[in-house]
């Protein structure tokens, strides 16, 4: 048998039907659902008189529209947001899928809830009407975002019509330097490949620096595979993975655990398997990074300066000129001279407990800069509860951060958590697109530690230089 990549193995284990032209029906093990991309899909089922094919494999949770202020029990003020969440509520109950409503402590961002509850397991196919589904690849699952028509297709048939992507290997060799995190790895990779560098591929991240990451760090890396254009990003499961999964509410138990573990241990890329594209970075070369523009590929080490449009070629020249104007930056300006109005800690990229610990470590016993708006939005109600138990919430609040309830919040600003015109934010989220965090808002993507440093100084700051 010819050697296979991890992606090949998971793919092969899920093909329910293959047509002569290679078009496959890929069976889906877990379908995650949130309120923004699902109402039209459920409505489509209803119109056609169809049922959800496998409600036991379908998990719904509202996250994009939910308020994160402490008074959220009083309901959602914005009528359209409220209707969308109510629609999910109604659809989840009517179609009988697993559901974590707004007032459940387990509610949170769908990509944090899935792994936390043990829904996401190695070797699975996982989809969701959300591009950051790539997150679940951290478990050695094939996980990717789909559109609403495909959400309806999966609801109705538990399959997707797919053609196989190509294999791409991203290897991070060696060790990371102190102050460098999973977020810096994933941004550095996108800086290297560009946002279209992964188009047509599924990425497998590997190498010592990836192996050394915790599960949460691996989720951060895979989360942004989509920003590199890849259909999915994944990491072969190992002891770190099994340790994380074991004992979670929906993880297998007893004899089933043993059987699962036996299979999971076969999920690695065989020696000699073919990759269509290979990118290698040295762990020691990666610095803490920030984005300066309006594309996640606009990445530079914090020690750098704002580039000039002339530094680029082709269509990127005009794009860079537009980005600089939008971001209000001047070529040659030191990145550490950029003043920040707001800090956002949260999102499916960096809203887990280790992220909050990293922030607490930087700000413990200190105060954020006067006039700074700084917000921590835990990724789930359980992350929030754990942070409170560990005393992290207190450290953050003492430093001057707002301590919010769980949701997507200012990552995409569908709820009231938004930037105002011209407001500049250091964010631990995943997209710095124009208007992403609010109309004319300006976003710099950073790691949690770097965001914490910016909150203290009021500028983009090299966390390694902080006293």
């Amino acid at each position, binding site marked *: 048998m010819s050697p296979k990549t991890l992606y090949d193995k998971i793919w092969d284990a899920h093909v*329910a039907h293959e047509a002569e032209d290679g078009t496959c029906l890929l069976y889906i093990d877990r379908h995650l659902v949130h309120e923004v991309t699902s109402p*039209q899909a459920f409505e489509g089922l209803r119109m056609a008189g169809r049922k959800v094919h496998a409600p036991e494999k379908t998990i719904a949770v509202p996250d994009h529209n939910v308020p994160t202020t402490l008074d959220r029990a009083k309901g959602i003020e914005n009528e359209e947001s409220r209707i969308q969440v109510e629609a999910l509520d109604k659809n989840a109950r009517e179609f009988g899928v697993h559901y974590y409503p707004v007032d459940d402590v387990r509610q949170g961002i769908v990509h944090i809830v899935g792994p936390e509850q043990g829904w996401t397991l190695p070797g699975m196919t996982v989809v969701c009407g959300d591009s950051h589904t790539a997150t679940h690849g951290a478990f050695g699952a094939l996980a990717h975002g789909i*559109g609403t028509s495909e959400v309806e297709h999966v609801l109705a048939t538990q399959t997707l019509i797919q053609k196989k992507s190509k294999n791409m290997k991203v290897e991070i060799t060696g060790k990371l330097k102190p102050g460098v995190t999973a977020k810096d790895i994933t941004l550095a990779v996108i800086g290297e490949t560009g946002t279209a560098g992964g188009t047509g591929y599924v990425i497998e991240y590997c190498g010592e620096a990836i192996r050394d990451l915790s599960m949460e760090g691996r989720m951060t890396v895979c989360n942004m595979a989509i920003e590199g254009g890849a259909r999915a990003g994944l990491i072969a499961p190992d002891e770190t993975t099994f340790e994380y999964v074991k004992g979670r509410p929906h993880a297998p138990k007893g004899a089933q655990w043993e059987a699962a573990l036996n299979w999971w241990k076969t999920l690695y890329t065989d020696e000699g398997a073919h990759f269509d594209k290979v990118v290698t970075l040295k762990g020691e070369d990666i610095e803490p990074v920030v984005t300066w523009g309006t594309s996640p590929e606009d990445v530079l080490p914090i020690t750098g300066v704002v580039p000039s449009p002339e530094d680029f070629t082709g*269509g*990127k020249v005009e794009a860079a000129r537009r980005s600089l104007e939008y971001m209000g930056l001047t070529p040659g300006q030191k990145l550490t001279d950029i003043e920040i109005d707001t800090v956002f800690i949260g999102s499916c990229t960096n809203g887990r407990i280790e992220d909050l610990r990293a922030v607490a470590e930087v700000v413990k016993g200190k105060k954020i800069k006067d006039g700074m708006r700084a917000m921590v939005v835990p990724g789930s109600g359980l992350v929030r509860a754990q942070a409170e138990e560990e005393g992290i919430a207190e450290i953050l609040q003492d430093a001057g951060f707002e301590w919010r309830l769980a949701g997507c919040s200012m990552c*995409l600003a*569908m709820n009231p958590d938004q930037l105002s015109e011209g407001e500049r934010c250091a964010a631990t989220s995943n997209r710095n697109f124009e208007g992403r965090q609010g*109309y004319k808002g300006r976003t710099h993507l950073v790691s949690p530690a770097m965001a914490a440093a910016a909150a203290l100084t009021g500028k983009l700051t090299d966390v390694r230089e902080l006293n």
Partner: protein
Amino acid sequence: MEKFTKIQGIAAPMPLVNIDTDMIIPKVFLKSIQRTGFGKNLFDEMRYNRDGSEIEDFVLNKPQYRDAEILIAGDNFGCGSSREHAPWAIADFGIKCIVSTSFADIFFNNSFKNGILPIVLPQEQVDILMKDAEKGANARMTVDLEAQEITTSDGEVITFEVDAFKKHCLLNGLDDIGLTMEKSASIKSFEDKASQERPWV
């Protein structure tokens, strides 16, 4: 789904690279639970001032491009989120075909589900079409899916590749779910086998 066979229409040039889904349809418009009505907010922040007035130099606000049915776009069109509201907005505006050097994966798939034909061509050919589109309303291109050909206003013919299955669905306006349900026996037998092999799933 509406069929796509052949269109002859105005092509609008949008050479900017990395046009993302937040540009195509900002999130404030994602709160609808309908599939329709997004066209008026297509490219909202590029197209309108905050007071709702039009930004004159935005391409689709120019008189010669207001009825564009084809977009010639910069690299990596549709990157970002999975929101199908992006192709819904594009289709609702009246655009049926987009040409670029590359598309983001999810956007690409979403387009086909909504009767929009995304065409990938090499840079040189996109450049030819971009130049042709810049001529304005008198330059009407023809996109023939059956023949897999684009004809410029000068009569130059450019052929393109398209996945055979996706082409078949577009030409006939076929509903994917209906097609898949015809294979329900295969799905059932996969499930039986998988529940033996991986009972924990």
